[in-house]
């Protein structure tokens, strides 16, 4: 079997490892428009912060491709998918034939049209290692930086460069920061913490007009800057499948085996629409764990192995200047809330299951909550009042602990 993988990030790596679980012989070719060994995208802010380096941020060791028998074509872009001929065309004019194809093209920064944006010289996105390298070259100690977008990417960028620039302003159309993962109270708490680090926020506004070094906001305010980072959002890279008449919605549509509507074409990662098990709806889940797990399931399916179950849901672990935030699932149903100095906890539950949670500050053992959501554990079967106060296995009872900690079914 000839496997071709388009992309070289978490979903691609998952697929390579998945294929090799079931097929140790087939040829694997990895095509990537980036020239780098596989690296972890979320680490680019840590790179600028000096918490990792180009070697340590490699998602897999240097030996990875050789150990898995992969041929790599880096710095090349796949321009067309011909599902009838079972080939992909590359930008160097060559064609690659595939037996099974994985589309792991990820997502790209989305920059909405903004007046005068083209006049800004020092303008950056913050998604790839090349983006980080370009931004780093522009940094200087007195730099005034404006970040448009107070989401995960924009704020991690802010943290990454805070110590290396003069002033840092962040604006967002939403009335609160991290609006995709935090509620009003949680967002306020994190915002206060970021403000203490010298980051200024203007929320509920957008840019009316850019001139070369200045942004005029919709509230009339002017923000002067030397460096502009746009981090408004990302869009799935779906064009290969879409242009080949494959089924695409907001992202590429796949079944539980990660197959697209095109024969022998699979897709995984930021570019696909996932089933969110925490609320039963379909959505784009552009998070690394989802990409890896989906990619691995795709790889196993491509190689004809025993199918893996993919349980996807939103989940984020993110920290800023020592303040940790862990969130997962959907924010619907009744709530349990605790708020005290430096800590915030909110649990969402409905229909006898935990739906989602927000933890800020004390995030110890958060995975016990994640597990409740993932496994849809009936809350009536555990000491839910206790688990609300503290995620602990005490709440699960003796037989659960005997099984999980004692490795036995029930023989005491």
């Amino acid at each position: 079997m000839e496997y071709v993988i388009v992309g070289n990030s978490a979903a691609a790596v998952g697929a390579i490892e998945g294929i090799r679980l079931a097929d140790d012989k087939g040829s694997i070719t990895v095509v990537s428009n980036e020239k780098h060994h596989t690296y972890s995208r979320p680490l680019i802010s840590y790179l600028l912060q000096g918490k990792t380096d180009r070697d340590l941020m490699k998602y897999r060791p240097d030996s990875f491709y050789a150990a898995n028998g992969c041929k790599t074509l880096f710095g090349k872009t796949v321009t067309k998918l011909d599902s009838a001929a079972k080939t992909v065309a590359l930008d160097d004019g060559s064609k690659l034939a595939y037996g099974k194809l994985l589309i792991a093209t990820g997502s790209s920064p989305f920059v909405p049209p903004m007046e005068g944006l083209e006049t800004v010289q020092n303008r950056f996105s913050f998604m790839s290692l090349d983006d980080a390298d370009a931004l780093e070259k522009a940094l200087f100690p007195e730099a005034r930086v404006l970040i448009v977008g107070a989401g995960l990417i924009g704020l991690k960028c802010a943290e990454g460069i805070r110590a290396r620039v003069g002033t840092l302003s962040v604006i967002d159309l939403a009335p609160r920061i991290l609006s995709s993962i935090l509620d009003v109270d949680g967002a306020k708490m994190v915002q206060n913490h970021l403000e203490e680090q010298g980051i200024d926020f203007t929320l509920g506004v957008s840019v009316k007009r850019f001139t070369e070094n200045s942004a005029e906001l919709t509230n009339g305010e002017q923000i002067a800057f030397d460096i502009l980072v746009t981090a408004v959002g990302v869009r799935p890279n779906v064009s290969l499948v879409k242009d080949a008449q494959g089924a695409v919605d907001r992202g590429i549509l796949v079944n539980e085996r990660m197959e697209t509507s095109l024969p022998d074409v699979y897709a995984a990662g930021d570019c696909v629409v996932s089933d969110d098990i925490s609320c039963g709806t379909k959505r784009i889940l552009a998070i690394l764990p989802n990409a890896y797990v989906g990619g691995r399931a795709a790889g196993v399916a491509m190689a004809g192995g025993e199918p893996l179950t993919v349980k996807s849901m939103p989940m984020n672990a993110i920290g800023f200047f020592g303040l940790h935030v862990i969130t997962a699932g959907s924010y619907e149903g009744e709530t349990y809330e605790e708020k005290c100095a430096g800590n915030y906890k909110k649990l969402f539950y409905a229909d006898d299951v935990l739906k989602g949670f927000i933890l800020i500050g004390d995030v110890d053992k958060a995975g016990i909550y994640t597990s409740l959501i993932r496994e849809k554990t009936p809350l009536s079967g555990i000491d839910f009042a206790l688990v609300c106060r503290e995620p602990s296995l005490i709440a699960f009872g003796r037989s659960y602990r005997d099984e999980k900690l004692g490795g036995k079914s029930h023989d005491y």
Partner: protein
Amino acid sequence: MKRVYVNEQWCLGCHLCEYNCAFANSGKKDMASALMNVKIRPNIRVEEDGKVCYAVSCRHCDEPFCVTNCITGALTRVDGVILINKDKCVGCFTCVLSCPFGCIRPTEQGAMQKCELCTTNGGTPVCVKGCPNNAIVFEER
């Protein structure tokens, strides 16, 4: 493979496993300097509520969410043992988000630490060696 298992009915709640673990992973030669006036960060923890007590440490899951979800590649499964590369780890807490047992925690420096079955401490887990009532065992089950 051999794992650390807990016989809950034998646990005395003495917390010795926590001290032995913290000492073994401290890199120090004597127990006093490793543990005196230090907030210990053991990889095994006793949970108790007055009625029940038991120790919890990494289960070395066959399908480890901490490994599949790790954004850096710092967590790996080698011969069944889940290991953490503290140099690669940036302390993002995705493994804390992922572990169903709450068995991975940050070091004082920020990278994560976890039970590695004392593979770097001589082979037999010290929590097992030091357990006075054989509540913690290292065996195949």
